[in-house]
């Protein structure tokens, strides 16, 4: 458990170091996520340690967005500069992206025979 938490922080630290060092526009935690996936695939021992910590963190993922989202409410005034185009763009684009992503996923997986007759992936 302790080793699991240590590993998550260590991989984030490595990710941050690579992100800063390389100047790539990719956040450290995302690089840490990729590196941890590689390490976990290679080591079942590491998986046993990280599993319970990851499960605990991901169970409360919604909670972790609350402090930043409270900050957004305080910035509400920023939206007033062009409220109609902004709100319309956010609604249209989020819905369009959800629909297109899901439909293309289903279309390709059905074409390749990767999903069953009920549309559920096997």
């Amino acid at each position, binding site marked *: 458990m302790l080793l699991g938490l240590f590993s*998550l922080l260590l991989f984030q630290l490595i990710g941050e170091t690579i992100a800063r060092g390389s100047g790539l526009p*990719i956040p450290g935690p995302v690089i840490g996520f990729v590196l941890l996936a590689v390490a976990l695939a290679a080591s079942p021992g590491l998986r046993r340690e990280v599993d319970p910590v990851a499960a605990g963190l991901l169970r409360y993922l919604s*909670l*972790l967005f609350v402090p930043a989202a*409270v900050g957004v409410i305080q910035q509400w005034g920023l939206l007033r500069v*062009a409220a109609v185009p*902004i709100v319309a763009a956010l609604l249209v684009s*989020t819905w369009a992206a959800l629909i297109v992503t899901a439909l293309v*996923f289903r279309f390709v997986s059905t074409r390749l025979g990767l999903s069953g007759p009920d549309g559920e992936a096997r």
Partner: protein
Amino acid sequence: MDGVFRLWVYLSASPLLWLTVTLGAYALADRIALAARYAPIANPVVIAVALIALLLHLTGTGYPTYFAGAQFVHFLLGPATVALAVPLVREAARVRRLILPVLAALLAGSLTAIVTAVGTGWALGADRAILMSLAPKSATTPIAMSIASANGGVPALAAVFVVVTGVIGAMSVTPLMNRLGLKDYAARGFAAGLAAGGIGTARAFQVNPLAGTFAGLGLALNGLATALLVPLLLTLWR
């Protein structure tokens, strides 16, 4: 009365109070969401934020004071992002089998998110700074802020758009997918993570573990895709 006032002065400036409030508000919000059987409209992030914002307003507390306490929760976003690798590796066989649908949906979805956001804003007369802040709105916050600032957008505005996009996506993904008759939780989750980032991913984990796994993948891949596609599209446009 003087004693109570001094206690308030002490507590309101200490990180302990606002950390406790954040956890308490979320616990209450989660109870409400559970009572509503996790209906999309009863999003725990939205409820918790509303409760906290109301309390901050009533007590005249500024965001910096609040964040001094809440930062301990905020800090865990980093390790939690790294932790998304765990369910991904657990489902490695399925992810490998579905790699072509994943990549096709990534390209189509990422392009759609960027082009429809900029296109709608442009058609309704938004200026360039707003358009460039809208372009990366489906990526995670740090990516969106750096893309916005590199292309003439406003980073603070981009951060606001990411959170609002996450909330819109988290609240509409379930009804939209049901309307489309889409039962595949890999596809539903991937769409939620790609289009609505971390808040969409949190919603996906609430609905189904497989959806959460693919949402985490969608979130990470779309961060990379957006960082590559926005500059590319801008070059083509000019």
